[in-house]
């Protein structure tokens, strides 16, 4: 081959290869489909049915991957991963079924006095810790005081703050939490500083776990890596950091049915790509329960739903926009409703989020069927005409500056950009769009001079609508004067005495039906009338489950597998 011919061939080959590769390039980000009033309602990925109850037989080891927990000792267990291990190791006073029903745990029954300020829990007899020690009232008091102690370094002891005497004990001016009476070993009586007729739900949080007399100090890493609990599983060797946690069945578990599984293995994966590794591990058969990265949701569903291995559940949380409602330009309900109406949730859910959630039309999620009000947020639909009309009446003229902040590193860049584009196109607003680290976002939201809207998400701690309405919208949840930064979770500084009255009455009501009615009315005021915040879409969780090997694999309230009921098929 002569030189020129060789050169020519080389050029030709490169050109061909280049053209072929360009043709293969996929159109990945087409942007958000234009708003269309006649768009079909977004369905998202529908929830799957709970797996049916199958009689269990002993055996099997359930394996899953998690990212490194903050803590597994109940004094500090906080995120889903850590709680997943802690709730297997410890059983609190009550337990919550996947459908939200509250059933006895270490307490056989409980009751409150007339105004719900004193709660009495009768404890099951004969229950023991993994080391054989009996579980009694003192064990609970010991655990609560251990977490609440000022030197404990607990980041979750605030769940105990409704108990009388907590503040003094935390400040170091008392030697015990006076509101907890454990003199009778078979009964624990709690006096609350603030009456709460749903207090038993709080005790479901792991910080309320009992601890044995041999408990180590919270700074003793040898103990906190291997805490001794009273739950259906015990540790098989200490927590191997960045490697894994191994659990094995506690055969003498008497508080409920002993578990069927022989054990569980939590492999710890690096947090940077944990979701991807969990998915890969499920695909190659190493994990029996896995999350997946958002980009693979569609593929995972298409592959595994036909095999019955797909789990989809609307969870106990909500994605929304916090609105700085005490400052211009968002200081009128009409302005907030205008912004809400200008956002095409369907298009974003289908286009950007690939159908992986459901647009929200309320703050209280559908997880609470008795308090859920579909469409209580009248402005949570897409109506550009109405939005323009309300904007005009609120003085939100085209060209108004609106600040929109969100947190980086959470994969929110695309959808927040879509929201910004919609607000600019539909209302002509000038949106200052900023991405910040999460801590900075929180600081900005709470600052006295905060304006505009902020991307937010709420995960409830207790299975009650009150845990949405009160922390996010009650005046007491601001915890600051207008010139101070917000210390609670009501970043929008929403304050409506009528709303406060309704939620106060609801917390003080012993009758569940009446309570739900009051929650509904409160939500109607805050969201329906005042649009205190802008709900966007539900918090929906998806998992892949090895249902060919295991049965009874449901997702519990904390978004973890129900290890105590899982059994081999």
């Amino acid at each position: 081959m002569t030189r020129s011919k060789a050169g020519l061939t080389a050029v030709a080959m490169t050109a061909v290869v280049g053209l072929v590769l360009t043709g293969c390039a996929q159109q990945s980000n087409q942007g958000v489909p234009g708003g269309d009033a006649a768009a079909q309602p977004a369905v998202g990925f529908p929830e799957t049915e709970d797996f049916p109850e199958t009689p269990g037989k002993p055996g099997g080891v359930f394996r899953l991957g998690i990212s490194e927990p903050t803590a597994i000792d109940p004094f500090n267990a906080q995120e889903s991963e850590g709680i997943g291990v802690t709730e297997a190791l410890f059983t609190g006073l009550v337990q919550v079924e996947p459908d939200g029903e509250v059933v006895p745990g270490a307490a056989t029954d409980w009751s409150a006095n007339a105004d719900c300020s004193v709660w009495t829990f009768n404890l099951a007899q004969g229950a023991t810790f993994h080391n054989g020690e009996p579980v009694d009232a003192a064990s609970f008091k010991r655990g609560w005081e251990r977490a609440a102690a000022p030197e404990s370094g607990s980041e979750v002891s605030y769940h105990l703050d409704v108990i009388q005497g907590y503040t003094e004990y935390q400040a170091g001016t008392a030697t015990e939490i006076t509101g907890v009476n454990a003199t009778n070993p078979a009964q624990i009586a709690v006096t609350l500083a603030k009456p709460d007729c749903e207090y038993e739900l709080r005790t479901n949080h792991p910080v309320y776990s009992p601890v044995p007399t041999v408990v180590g100090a919270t700074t003793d890493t040898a103990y906190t890596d291997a805490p001794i609990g009273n739950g259906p599983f015990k540790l098989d060797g200490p927590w191997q950091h960045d490697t894994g946690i191994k659990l094995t069945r506690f055969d003498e578990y008497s508080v409920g049915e002993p578990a069927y599984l022989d054990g569980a293995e939590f492999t710890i994966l690096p947090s940077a790509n944990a979701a991807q590794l969990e998915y890969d591990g499920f695909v190659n058969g190493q994990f029996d329960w896995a999350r997946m990265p958002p980009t693979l949701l569609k593929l995972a569903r298409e592959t595994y739903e036909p095999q019955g291995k797909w789990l989809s559940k609307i969870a106990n949380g909500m994605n929304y926009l916090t609105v700085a409602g005490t400052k211009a330009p968002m200081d009128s309900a009409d302005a907030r409703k205008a912004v809400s109406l200008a956002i095409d949730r369907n298009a974003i859910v289908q286009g950007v989020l690939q159908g992986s959630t459901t647009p929200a039309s309320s703050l209280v999620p559908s997880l609470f069927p008795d308090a859920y009000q579909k469409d209580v947020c009248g402005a949570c639909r897409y109506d550009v005409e109405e939005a323009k009309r309300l904007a005009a009446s609120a003085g939100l003229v085209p060209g108004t500056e609106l600040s929109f902040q969100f947190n980086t590193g959470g994969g929110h860049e695309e959808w927040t950009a879509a929201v910004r584009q919609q607000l600019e196109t539909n209302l002509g607003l000038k949106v200052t769009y900023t991405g910040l680290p999460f801590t900075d976002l929180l600081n900005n939201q709470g600052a006295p001079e905060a304006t505009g809207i902020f991307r937010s998400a709420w995960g409830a701690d207790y299975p009650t609508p009150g845990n949405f309405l009160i922390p996010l919208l009650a005046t007491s949840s601001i915890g600051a004067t207008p010139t101070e930064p917000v210390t609670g979770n009501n970043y929008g500084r929403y304050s409506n005495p009528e709303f406060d009255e309704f939620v106060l009455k609801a917390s003080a009501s012993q009758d569940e039906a009446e309570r739900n009615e009051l929650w509904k009315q409160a939500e109607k005021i805050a969201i329906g009338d005042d649009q205190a915040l802008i709900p966007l879409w539900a918090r929906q969780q998806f998992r892949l489950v090895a249902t060919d090997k295991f049965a009874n694999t449901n997702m519990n309230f904390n978004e973890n597998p129900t290890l105590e009921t899982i059994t081999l098929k």
Partner: protein
Amino acid sequence: MGKFILRRAAQALLVIIGATLLVFLANFAFGDPFGSTGDRQVPPAIAAANRAAFGLDQPLPLQYLTYMGNLFTGDLGVDYNQNRPVIELLIETVPNTARLALVAIVIDIFIGVTAGIIAAVKRYSFADVLVTVVSTLAIGIPTFVIGFVLVATLSGVGPFPTVPRSFTVEVPWYTEVLLPAFALAIVDAAFVARLMRGSMLEVLRSDYIRTARAKGLSERKVIGKHALRNSMIPVITYIGVSLGGLLGGAIITEGIFQYPGVGYLLFRAIGANNAPVITAVVIFSVLAIVVLSLIVDILYAYLDPRIRLS
């Protein structure tokens, strides 16, 4: 020789100080390791207490001096996440990385040197073109792509362990090390092959080879005894520096294969803003490279008597 080593040691010290200073500044820019992140809402009082416990509330120059002081007494500090001494983490992971580096070097010497010799000896033949093209491809394709392809196709196949896997699965070190070593070795082997080829071609042109052939030595002896030794020098230099780099931990490759070495430790520490671990690993890498280049330089002088250490 003694003066030479002393001078190099002083230079190494300067490099370490410079590197730690840079890493310190970088860690400072990373942000607060104890703040609220996503799901984790840390009450401000606790976050402040944690920061104080690790001395993060002090001014940066003071933090740096404290760290350097501790470093010279052998105290590498305690990691932020779990309060474990960093030195323990390094002790756990360095042997793994050393094994990986050595296996990778062995593979790459074997493949690279053989390919290079063949290419040089049979110049312009099909083998030569093949080696040149393949080595160019191997250098062009990023290591992590090779890593991903290997994981996707070969993990779980035959002796190779599945990646990712449940932590309780026992995997002997010699099977665990194979795939990542191979991924690392491919690029190095390509470089070695090209170096070997170039160096050998040059050597084959020299007078003493002509003399050897004239003496009637077999071609095998000419290549194997005379040409090879003389052409190895640039290759050894390259391998030495490469070994240093590998000992520092191939972050991405170890991450892809979840191989429990120093690179994986760094990968996880960066994700968690775990400053003491990051700084310690960087210092270790710098040391590894510096020490190995020193050894290579000394070796150079022994291999080629014409070179004098200046």
